[in-house]
């Protein structure tokens, strides 16, 4: 009964100053719309840009680095154990780049519940022999299906079918830049010379375009078997093991853990791509800041309008108090007004924000570098809608708080006697 009375009072006061109420509401609608639109668009872009790198990057990459041995023979000698060792001109040892016992390692990863998938990879330095010219490049030998499942390989194959890599013997998918340079069409055969001097003919079955020019000029893909054959290596030859996790935040910790166990090098995604994280963070921080500023400005609008309403409705407040409304009741009436403006403005704002998102999503956005993107990206994550909704209520509550407190402390005697 009492709540409905307070709601009734709030409604009557709002209707009495309908125009101002609408103006305040429009302020909230506008700011919530902008907040949601800005955040979903900004984060859509963020995800696009991050995806450009992060989707294709393994969360942990295991490999053998070419490096000097960490322990030198002299350290083993007891005769010199209490001496300083000064060794000049250390060279890296002729260690193998292949990962030793990689089948067992891969089995271990597959049994680890934190791991979403594992894909082997061989990177081979080659020369493409184009007429009289040699063009340098890298051929990545990959597990075609796993690579596609884990690292969205399929999305970046812009011509041809990526599965042909697996089903056609001695096939290659060329980087778009490399293909343009070599004038190689699909169906053509290109000749490749490996660093060891082996020559092999590969059939072009598709083009690959990542959106990063320097990658596309150099990188090409073949099946792992083809590359092993090219390098005259056994089927157990693997230079990289790429691991994708369910939760990529675990990457640094797991990289350290397995580095110890297997004694191989491991890079985690956070360390390698730290700058992307930072960029993403700053971009979303800016959009949050702009959005929240908009909301606070609309909060001031509500504050002004409520203050005005209180001055105009002094008599009403005084009479309510005289007939038995407590300060708290009056306070609640004005808080209710503020929250109602925030609530309805917020709902309409969320709806318009959603529409704006749909609108932006229709805007064509085609870049040669981004083959999978046809329109501007928008992220419809409910998170932004929830944040915007909560913020609209919080700011309007605070905008109403001070005027409501003032209203509740009005002394009815002053008003009634002042007449």
């Amino acid at each position, binding site marked *: 009964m009492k709540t409905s009375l307070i709601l009734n009072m709030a409604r009557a*006061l709002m*209707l009495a100053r309908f125009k101002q109420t609408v103006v305040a509401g429009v302020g909230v609608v506008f700011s919530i719309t902008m907040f949601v639109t800005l955040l979903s668009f900004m984060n859509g872009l963020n995800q696009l840009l991050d995806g450009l790198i992060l989707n294709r990057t393994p969360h942990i990459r295991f490999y053998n680095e070419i490096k000097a041995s960490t322990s030198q023979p002299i350290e083993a000698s007891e005769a010199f154990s209490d001496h300083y060792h000064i060794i000049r001109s250390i060279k890296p040892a002729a260690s193998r780049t292949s990962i030793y016992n990689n089948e067992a390692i891969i089995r271990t990863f597959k049994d680890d519940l934190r791991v979403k998938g594992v894909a082997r990879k061989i990177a081979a330095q080659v020369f493409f022999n184009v007429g009289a010219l040699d063009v340098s490049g890298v051929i990545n030998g990959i597990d075609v299906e796993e690579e596609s499942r884990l690292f969205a390989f399929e999305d970046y194959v812009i011509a041809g079918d990526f599965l042909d890599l697996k089903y056609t013997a001695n096939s290659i998918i060329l980087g778009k830049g490399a293909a343009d340079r070599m004038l190689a069409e699909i169906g053509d055969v290109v000749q490749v010379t490996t660093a060891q001097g082996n020559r092999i003919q590969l059939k072009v079955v598709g083009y690959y375009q990542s959106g990063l020019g320097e990658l596309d000029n150099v990188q090409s893909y073949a099946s792992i078997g083809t590359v092993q054959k090219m390098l005259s290596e056994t089927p157990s030859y693997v230079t990289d093991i790429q691991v994708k996790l369910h939760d990529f935040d675990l990457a640094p910790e797991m990289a350290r853990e397995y580095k110890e166990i297997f004694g191989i090098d491991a890079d985690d995604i956070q360390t390698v791509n730290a700058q992307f994280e930072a960029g993403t963070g700053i971009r979303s921080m800016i959009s949050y800041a702009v959005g929240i500023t908009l909301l606070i400005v609309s909060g001031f609008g509500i504050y002004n309008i409520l203050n005005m309403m209180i001055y105009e409705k002094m008599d*009403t407040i005084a009479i309510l108090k005289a*007939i038995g*409304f407590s*300060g708290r*009741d009056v306070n609640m009436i004005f808080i209710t007004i503020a929250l109602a403006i925030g609530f309805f403005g917020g709902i309409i704002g969320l709806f318009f924000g959603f529409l704006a998102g749909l609108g932006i999503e229709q805007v064509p956005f085609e870049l040669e570098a981004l083959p999978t993107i046809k329109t501007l990206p928008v992220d419809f994550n409910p998170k932004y809608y929830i944040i915007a909704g909560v913020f609209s209520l919080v700011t309007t509550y605070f905008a109403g708080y001070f005027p409501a407190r003032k209203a509740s402390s009005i002394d*009815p005697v002053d008003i009634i*006697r002042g007449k």
Partner: protein
Amino acid sequence: MRGKPVIEAQKINKYFYSPEKTRVLKDVTFQVTRGEFVSIMGKSGCGKSTLLYILSTMDTDYEGSLLIDEEEVSGKKANRLSEIRNEKIGFVFQFHYLLNEFSVLENVMIPGLKLGKKSKEELEHVAMEKLRIFDMQDHALKKANQLSGGQKQRVAIARSLMNDPLIIMGDEPTGNLDKKNSDIVFNIFKELAQEFHQTMLIVTHDPEFAAGTDRIIEMEDGRVLNS
């Protein structure tokens, strides 16, 4: 029931502090018992309105003791005072003080809604009954600002009766009305006193009005001359 005190004021003193400390009420002591129709008379500035606002519990800045319905109210929390006002006191002001945002019926109902002891339907019924006493039932659905001054004052009295209060307090309820309307309002008070034995305490400076009441409390210079 007659004879039980509704209001007991004991040695009430009140000071105004601006521009300088002045004592506006001096040891005011009196009683209103149930069923009495009392008027407070005095020249303007003698403190009669100030006294009324203290008795109404709206003004809490005074010295002395005040009992309403044998309950000590001085020093009580603001929320409790609001409850007392809502339940036990009906108000009629010099200016009608209806809420223009609401209809006549709603205006009358508001104290009842606030009290929250009856359902909305019951309250509507009660409010209509109160309006009928003053022959205002035909105006029930009009907005408050569509009424004439005299009609507004009648509605305000109906509102003051909404919760069947222990006492009705009026601050010059006829002060802002012409002769005809003020007669109507006066007759209403008279009727309330005679037919309903409603306890009433009315501040007025109209001797004619005061003459029609059971008892006149005369005030001068912050003092009660007779009680």
